[in-house]
């Protein structure tokens, strides 16, 4: 405001650190450390590499969907149809291969393409017809699920060849194969969000879409890209899921969208848009998964576990709000 506040300018790095610890990420790290310590004491099977890798395997599909969801929520949108696209493209994989006789490789690619197209369909309406994302994806949530049932006639496709399971059930370089997909996708989405003009544009859109448009950011194209990307990732996750469970079902992924959104929101992405990071989302994912797993290993049942997770979600945002109000002013 004036010269009397011309204090020492904090360095970029210390600023980032400060942001990190006062932000949701900091809260999550604390929660995570507490959870790990407590759970490690209550169950000796918890802190083993075998268990942790296995948990990572189980986390992959939700994780893959949470990455584009972070982008979308940062722009102030939402995609409720991811679970349905996930199920739909998985079903299409099995249907194309078994009913239509395509080679499995082709069916895999085609199913991911179909997921992408489903995302594109959402995107076209959201961008060009200006249907609010929540409404559009609420409608396609029902539509894609319906297509999954209709096309497959609710039949599951099974009996895949051995090589197909390499992606979902076996290890590559010592860790479950699909985790590689998640690691690569996380790193790319992280860097893109944090370091590229595209990522910066997403934040700008989420904070002030008019301002972004007036700054020459191709808002429509960016939105088109992220909703399509969400469909693509849902297709990819659907494929990995099929490989993991070795069958396709028209109802797989039902209700998954809420798990995904919970992880993203827990990770500090503001549902109002404009704020959020990929590391935050990953922390959110990991915290939920470890709680589920660790509590189960400590003898807490599934129903109690979801109570704990719900409470953690509310509590962590509450604490974050408190910290923001207390310290972010200064």
């Amino acid at each position: 405001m004036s010269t009397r506040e011309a204090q020492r300018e904090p360095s970029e790095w210390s600023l980032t650190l400060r942001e990190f610890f006062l932000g949701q990420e900091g809260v999550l790290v604390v929660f995570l450390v507490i959870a790990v310590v407590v759970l490690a004491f209550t169950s000796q099977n918890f802190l083993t590499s075998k268990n942790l890798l296995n948990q990572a395997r189980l986390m992959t599909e939700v994780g893959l969907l949470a990455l584009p969801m972070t982008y979308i929520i940062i722009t102030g949108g939402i995609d409720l149809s991811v679970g349905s696209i996930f199920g739909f493209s998985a079903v299409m994989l099995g249907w194309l291969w078994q009913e239509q006789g395509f080679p499995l490789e082709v069916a895999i690619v085609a199913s991911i393409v179909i997921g992408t197209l489903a995302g594109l369909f959402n995107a076209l309406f959201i961008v060009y017809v200006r249907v609010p994302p929540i409404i559009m994806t609420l409608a396609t949530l029902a539509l894609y699920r319906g297509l999954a049932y209709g096309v497959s006639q609710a039949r599951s496709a099974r009996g895949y060849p051995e090589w197909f399971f390499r992606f979902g059930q076996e290890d590559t370089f010592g860790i479950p194969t699909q985790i590689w997909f998640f690691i690569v996708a996380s790193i790319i989405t992280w860097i893109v969000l944090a370091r590229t003009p595209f990522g910066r544009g997403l934040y700008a859109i989420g904070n002030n879409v008019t301002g972004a448009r007036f700054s020459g950011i191709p808002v429509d194209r960016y939105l088109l890209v992220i909703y399509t990307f969400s469909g693509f990732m849902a297709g990819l996750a659907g494929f990995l899921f099929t490989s993991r469970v070795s069958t396709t079902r028209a109802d797989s992924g039902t209700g998954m969208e809420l798990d995904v959104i919970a992880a993203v929101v827990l990770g500090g992405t503001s549902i109002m848009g404009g704020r959020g990071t990929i590391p935050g989302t990953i922390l959110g994912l990991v915290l939920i998964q470890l709680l589920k797993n660790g509590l189960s290993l400590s003898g807490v049942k599934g129903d109690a576990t979801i109570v704990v997770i719900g409470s953690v979600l509310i509590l962590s945002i509450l604490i974050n709000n408190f910290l923001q109000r207390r310290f972010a002013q200064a």
Partner: protein
Amino acid sequence: MAATSKAYKSQTVESGFSLRSLTHLLGSQEFILLMSILALSLVVYSDNPRFGTERNLLNILSNASYIAVGAIGMSMVIITGNIDVSVGSLIGVLATIAGQLAVHDYPIWMAWTAPILAAMVVEGFIGFLVAYLRIPAIVVTLGMMSILKGGLILATGGAWIYDIPQEFFLAQRQPYGIPMPIYFMVTLVILAALWMHYSPTGRAIYAVGGNAEAARLSGISEKRTLMTVFILHGFMIGVAGLLFATQFTTIQSTVPPGLELMIITAAVVGGVSILGGSGTVIGAMLGAILIRVIQSGMIFLNVSAYWLQAVQGILILLTVLADILRRRRQAASIGK
């Protein structure tokens, strides 16, 4: 001369006014919905006249009732720019509470009012977190959904409730041949519509959703309005839960799947703007009825069971698109 022209002028103003209100009515989402319901019903009826039997129509309305009652509160919440995804779980919990009280020989009135009170307490708590502690509603209710869902199983172990005394089944009664839930739906929708149109607090809901800052400056307390909305929403959900619980001879101690989406969809199809500040409860009720007409009509039209969901999805999408295009056209025509 001057006097005549003045009289003439006022006359045109009057007729112009009524004309405008007519076009206003014809252009409203409620009217479009009503037309969609009628058109769809006619199509189904012409294919299969049994669709038009009194019993079927009453069944449809009755099945839409608890969704519509839930959508009343949901509309208010959405108009203020918030959302509640925990309603499905909450209704599951309420049904269990009502059933448990009824089988444990508590007086019936207690079994009926307890779920309503419980819902008001839970929604009041949600409202407190949203209004006073400023946590986004979707976060609170997402968390609450887990807590209620898990807590229900934790408490009951999932046992079904049966051997409930007959007088408990409020929703099964049919005074004058019309199922009870329809009375509830119509009465509550009318009351809520009047309240939202005529009470200062009702108008404040629109103000808070339309421009929270301006509302604050007009001396409207956003926090109090939000609390009122969530508690009222709790009341409506409580009634919806009661109608749901007393419809069946046995009560499942689980959460009805997808109920929250159904209620939200009814409100949104009914023209309640998810961006806040506009919408009516009559629209929400028509939205609920439309969903049920679609569901039921598809069966009558022999749509393959496998394609039911897809057709439903398309019809919902079309309704929503029609609403959006209507708004766009209205804005454009006025802009000229």
